[in-house]
């Protein structure tokens, strides 16, 4: 029931789907915080500079790792959830930095972008 215990029934709690986005933001934040720094370190600093990098990142080695069902699930989670984290955070910081007049359009762009990106991620991970 959306009515409060207030004697006047015209007072209702306002509906908001913000909790869904906030939960995805939280989950994405934990995943991004735990996994992204080491991934960036390996792929963006290890890869160019380590001697055995070409061996480690060789196609024949990485493909089986990534196409294992655990690898696919891991990639899906590590890529898609941080998109939702970024969408929610950017939606609010862009509003704070002056563009709040965009209102609902901002939400559609941010969350819509995250949803589209997730769909793309699912497609890419399935077709590995």
């Amino acid at each position: 029931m959306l009515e409060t215990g207030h004697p006047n029934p015209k007072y209702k709690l306002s509906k908001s789907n913000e909790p869904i986005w906030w939960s995805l933001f939280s989950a994405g934040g934990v995943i991004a915080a735990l996994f992204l720094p080491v991934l960036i370190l390996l792929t963006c600093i290890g890869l160019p500079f380590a001697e055995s990098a070409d061996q480690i990142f060789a196609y024949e080695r990485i493909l089986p790792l990534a196409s294992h069902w655990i690898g696919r699930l891991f990639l899906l989670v590590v890529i898609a959830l941080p998109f939702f984290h970024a969408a929610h955070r950017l939606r609010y910081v862009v509003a704070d930095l002056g563009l709040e007049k965009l209102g609902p359009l901002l939400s559609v762009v941010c969350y819509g972008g995250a949803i589209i990106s997730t769909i793309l991620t699912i497609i890419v991970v399935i077709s590995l």
Partner: protein
Amino acid sequence: MKPYHRPVPKTWWLKRLPYFLFVIRELTAAFVAFYCVLLLVLVYKLGQGPEAYEAMLAFLKTPGMIFLNVVAGLFVTYHSVTWFNLTPKVMVVQIGEECVPGYLIAGSNYVAWLVVSGVLAWIIVRM
């Protein structure tokens, strides 16, 4: 009568260091999204075959990308640090009358971060 809203300048976040650090923290999300896009493209290229994948690796080794990725890495690390430092505020663990001290909660998150990073690095490098 409408309530009066004091005009807030668009540069509000440059006026004080805490405001600036807050906006930087929030903007780390842009770098998180940037790297996730990069990772998605890398995985896509992996699925496209060895030539596409090797080309992507070569692209990641160019100086421009290394620079961008180092910057992104710094911002993403700032996200991790500020995130874990917030955990004592959101996860209040009470034992009887007292709360578990903040540094223990944040500390256990940092330990988890280290363990997770180590395991992932081991899987990628050694397996």
